[in-house]
């Protein structure tokens, strides 16, 4: 009794949705308080037995959920109750609430199947049917689709247009959730394409547009119907959808392109609707770009868009241009001025599009000018766009190992300039590129050191934390290649300036280490200088003298000088010697190099700089600057500071002493400290070279080496050690490999020349027994041919030089007239095998294989044969194949067997389909050998079906290249090195 009264009271005094909204607007007690009060009411009212009260409560709840994001999943059962109400207005509220709140995981979905069926088949009220259809299109699950497919099928040929068009739109979701529905509904869907009612056609075209965009191949056979609509339809919306369909189909079947190019151009010329015109343009530039006339027309239209005042059209014009850019760069170049003009548009989206286009125009001929323009824009832009500009300059110029950069001196100074731009936040990328270029391009190092010096020396830069990474690269470069520096002492001062205490510890450690390197260089130069001034050539400049001495290593001369001869020995094992002229050697060639680059530094200044006073001053400076850091809490800093200070401690006494003895004890090169200095200098002058990331993989795994041992225990101990992130190369001294390379031939030659003594015979014996641990000397050459050691500079550089020479030659032949201003040839850029792996973006395969399979079955008419396999999904592939075979023999098939073959290949193996985009053309070309090959392939495919996806892809590619050796390829060795 109490409950009935309360429900009556509720009904009488219930707040309607309107009251709720009004209350929300007034907000007397605050929104959240008001809503929570309202929700309490709703919770009470929704339990009411009175259907009006209940539906009203549900309506309010839906409102709050939809616009204020309040959870309503708790009311799912009440939603079902309201849906089953007999009054349309209540039912409507229920259905709306269901489509708003139900998801695949809502449990009560199981309860509504019958309600939906009842409403779908309601013969009297088409609006109830429509409600159910609408709701289904939002919430239908696989189960619902399966159970309701017969009803939907009936509605697809309903005489009521109002219902039929909704049923058609719903089919899209049904196919997606329950592909088997295709067998039932697809034919009727296709029939609707021929309907005379424009609404039906519009709906069905929309559905096909979506279906085609997911899996174009299956709908190729419908091309004639589509074509008819494309030519006949007067409805812009339908035409736009049709163009979208054809844009996809044409990519698969070039002969279609020939047919549609004329109608598309016709639409483009005649239509007054910008949307249709733009769709035509987009279709032409994306799919019909081989048809010169059409592209020209499209570019004219694009230009109209670009020059329009409407920002929307401007944006779309730029958009279309960037689609056309890769194939028809002329179209972009024609509109160059406009594009650059929009770089300063006030809409960031338009600016971004035009930036993209500008970057598309970049080539090696204009990269300098374009970068100049862009940097100027970057200076004027807001921080966000500034960084976008800088980012795209960096990524474009570094593309494909700096392919478009000819003048690295320019590029490096551009990097320096970019670092100084106020908003620059590209520190990481610039750091990477500075080091990368430094490793790869030998010729640019002097300039790089100069740029680095300019950055290091500026104390203002130390306050910008975005630049720290760049500064660390600069510090490293200056330390590593200090021999190119004009004034090393200046570098020491810069590296130790007081403001470096602003740097984070890791970078400061790099600074200190670099200072160490520079110091060693200074001391070493100082020693050499002293020795040479004391030598028999007192009148010439010491350093250049030394350098020249090394160029002509006359035995008698070098014997008298211990230091130069020592470094000569070094050079024999020095990787640089084997492939570089002597001029480019480390110590003492600084002068030569800088002169050749037209700089002001002369040997005289460098001679003067290494005075005794300077050395002592800087030793003191270092002690002074680093002294306080011996108490640093950072291990990296502490370690390096200690190293450096201990080193100074070690040598300082003797260096000071040596001055006193200067005159008498000239030949005291045996002095302890100078030995140490030489040792250190040798250690630091060791060149770091890039190593291919795949180098490790090329090393054969020795037998008996257990690599897959469980190392979980280790992880417990050093779990917090992070693996280095993927850098394209690792900095490894190539000394080791050099040593091996040098000693091996040495050993061989000895073996050949000397008569086998006892020792060698013992060695041979040992070798025989433990041959495993020796490098095989005989096979060495062969192996080297197959897999050049990753870091063999000789091989690498020779190859590079050859190709470079060729490139240079052709360049000179072709371009010499066009670009007389290019003074110097492009320097050698070291490349590694592992570097250039053209990673084409993997396109995800069509996500619903079963859907496309089903569609093809229906379209190609093999229902009877496949009916047995309906319930067995594992049979699907075989049934598909049957369908295909029929397709080939079917004479009535529109697009004859050319296409069939290609399709067939693609369909044999589901995984091979992924490679379709890449291999399509090839397969087409190899088609002619005919069916025998296909049979074989089929066999091969069957055998290999179970191999991994990656493997299968590899196979497909091989198959396209070498059609006949598929059968012999049976041993399945997954090639992980690919």
């Amino acid at each position: 009794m109490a409950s009935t009264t309360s429900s009556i009271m509720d009904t009488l005094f219930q707040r309607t949705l309107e009251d709720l909204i009004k209350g929300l607007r007034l907000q007397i007690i605050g929104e959240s308080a008001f809503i929570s009060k309202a929700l309490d009411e709703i919770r009470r009212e929704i339990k009411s037995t009175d259907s009006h009260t209940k539906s009203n409560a549900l309506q309010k709840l839906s409102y709050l959920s939809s616009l204020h994001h309040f959870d309503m999943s708790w009311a799912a059962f009440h939603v079902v109750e309201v849906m089953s109400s007999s009054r349309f207005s209540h039912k409507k509220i229920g259905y709306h609430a269901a489509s708003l709140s139900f998801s695949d995981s809502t449990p009560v979905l199981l309860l509504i199947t019958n309600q939906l069926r009842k409403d779908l088949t309601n013969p009297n009220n088409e609006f109830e049917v429509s409600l159910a259809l609408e709701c289904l299109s939002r919430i239908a699950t696989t189960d619902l689709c399966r159970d309701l497919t017969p009803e939907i099928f009936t509605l697809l040929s309903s005489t009521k247009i109002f219902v039929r068009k909704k049923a058609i739109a719903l089919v899209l979701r049904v196919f997606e959730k329950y592909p088997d529905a295709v067998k039932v509904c697809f034919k009727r869907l296709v029939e609707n394409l021929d309907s005379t009612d424009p609404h039906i056609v519009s709906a069905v075209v929309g559905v096909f547009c979506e279906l085609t965009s997911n899996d174009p191949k299956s709908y190729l056979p419908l091309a004639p119907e589509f074509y008819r609509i494309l030519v006949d339809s007067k409805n812009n919306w339908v035409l736009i959808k049709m163009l979208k369909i054809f844009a996809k189909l044409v990519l698969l079947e070039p002969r279609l392109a020939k047919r549609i190019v004329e109608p598309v151009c016709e639409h483009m010329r005649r239509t007054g609707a910008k949307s249709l015109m733009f769709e035509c343009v987009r279709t032409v530039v994306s799919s019909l770009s081989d048809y010169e006339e059409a592209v020209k027309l499209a570019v004219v239209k694009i230009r109209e868009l670009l020059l329009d005042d409407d920002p929307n059209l401007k944006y779309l014009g730029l958009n279309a241009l960037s689609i056309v850019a890769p194939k028809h760069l002329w179209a972009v170049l024609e509109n160059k001025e406009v594009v650059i003009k929009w770089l300063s548009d006030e809409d960031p989206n338009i600016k971004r599009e035009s930036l993209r286009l500008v970057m598309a125009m970049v080539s090696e001929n204009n990269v300098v000018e374009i970068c100049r323009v862009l940097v100027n824009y970057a200076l004027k832009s807001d921080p966000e766009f500034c960084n976008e500009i800088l980012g795209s300059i960096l990524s474009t110029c570094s593309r494909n190992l700096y392919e478009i950069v000819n003048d690295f001196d320019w590029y490096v100074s551009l990097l320096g300039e970019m670092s100084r731009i106020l908003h620059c936040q590209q520190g990481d990328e610039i750091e990477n590129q500075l080091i990368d270029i430094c490793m790869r391009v030998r010729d640019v190092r002097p300039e790089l050191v100069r740029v680095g010096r300019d950055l290091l020396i500026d104390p203002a830069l130390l306050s910008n934390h975005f630049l720290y990474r760049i500064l660390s690269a600069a510090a490293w470069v200056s330390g590593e290649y200090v021999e190119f520096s004009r004034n090393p002492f200046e570098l020491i001062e810069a590296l130790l300036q007081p403001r470096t205490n602003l740097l984070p510890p890791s970078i400061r450690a790099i600074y200190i280490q670099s200072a160490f390197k520079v110091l060693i260089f200074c001391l070493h130069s100082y020693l050499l200088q002293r020795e040479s001034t004391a030598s028999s050539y007192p009148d010439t400049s010491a350093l250049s003298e030394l350098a020249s001495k090394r160029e002509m290593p006359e035995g008698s001369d070098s014997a008298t000088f211990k230091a130069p001869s020592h470094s000569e020995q070094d050079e024999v094992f020095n990787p640089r010697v084997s492939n570089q002229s002597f001029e480019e050697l480390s110590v003492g060639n600084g002068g030569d190099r800088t002169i050749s680059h037209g700089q002001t530094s002369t040997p005289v200044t460098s001679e003067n700089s290494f005075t005794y006073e300077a050395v002592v001053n800087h030793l003191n400076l270092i002690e002074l600057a680093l002294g306080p850091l011996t108490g640093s809490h950072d291990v990296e800093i502490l370690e390096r500071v200690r190293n450096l200070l201990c080193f100074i401690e070690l040598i300082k006494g003797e260096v000071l002493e040596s001055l006193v003895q200067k005159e008498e004890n000239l030949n005291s090169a045996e002095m302890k400290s100078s030995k140490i200095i030489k040792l250190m200098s040798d250690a630091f002058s060791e060149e770091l070279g890039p190593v291919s990331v795949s180098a490790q993989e090329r090393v054969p795994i020795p037998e008996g080496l257990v690599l897959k041992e469980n190392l979980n225990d280790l992880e417990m101990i050093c779990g917090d050690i992070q693996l280095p992130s993927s850098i394209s190369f690792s900095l490894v001294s190539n000394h080791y490999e050099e040593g091996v390379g040098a000693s091996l031939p040495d050993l061989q030659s000895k073996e050949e020349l000397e008569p086998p003594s006892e020792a060698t015979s013992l060695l041979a014996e040992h070798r025989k027994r433990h041959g495993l641990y020796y490098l095989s000397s005989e096979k060495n050459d062969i192996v080297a041919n197959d897999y050049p050691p990753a870091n063999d500079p000789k091989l690498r550089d020779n190859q590079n030089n050859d190709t470079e020479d060729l490139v240079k030659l052709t360049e000179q032949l072709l371009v010499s007239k066009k670009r007389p201003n290019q003074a110097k040839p492009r320097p050698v850029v070291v490349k590694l095998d592992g570097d250039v792996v053209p990673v084409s973006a993997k396109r995800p395969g069509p996500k619903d294989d079963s859907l496309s399979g089903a569609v093809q079955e229906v379209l190609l008419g093999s229902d009877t044969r496949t009916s047995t396999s309906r319930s067995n999904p594992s049979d699907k592939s075989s049934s598909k194949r049957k369908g295909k075979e029929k397709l080939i023999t079917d004479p009535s098939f529109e697009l004859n067997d050319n296409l069939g073959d290609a399709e067939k290949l693609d369909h044999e193996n589901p995984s091979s389909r992924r490679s379709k985009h890449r291999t399509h053309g090839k397969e087409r070309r190899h088609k002619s050998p005919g069916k025998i090959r296909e049979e074989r392939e089929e066999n091969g495919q069957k055998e290999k079906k179970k191999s991994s996806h990656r493997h299968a892809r590899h196979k497909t590619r091989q198959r396209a290249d070498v059609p006949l050796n598929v059968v012999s390829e049976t041993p399945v060795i997954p090639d992980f090195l690919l």
Partner: protein
Amino acid sequence: MGIRFILMVNKQGQTRLAQYYEYLTLEERRALEGEIVRKCLARNEQQCSFVEHRNYKIVYRRYASLFFLVGVDNDENELAILEFIHLLVETMDRHFGNVCELDIMFHLEKAHFMLEEMVMNGCIVETSKTNILQPIQLMEKTS
């Protein structure tokens, strides 16, 4: 699915209508609306009506104090969607007579009903104003 969602948002950033054609959780909806509103409402009249957001596009248009935002797939025709928005506004105008934000607030179910006639499962199925309004008028007559 061409159209993913349709939002109507006022100048203050309050959502007045939200219709999604794919299922998103409440949290996802809240986040999405927040991001989009922040992105689009900051733009001025001289800027274009297309904004790239995550992996799809937003085409929007402002009428008086109300922003109409439509999220579409990347290959959807932007201009056609603009026309669609205009059609929607014209339809509502015809029904309510000089439609304003309050009309949509207090007659949300009608606005939804119109949208349901126009768009189904992300596809536009009806573009004739008369056809769109027919069921609503019929409903009003009977009730």
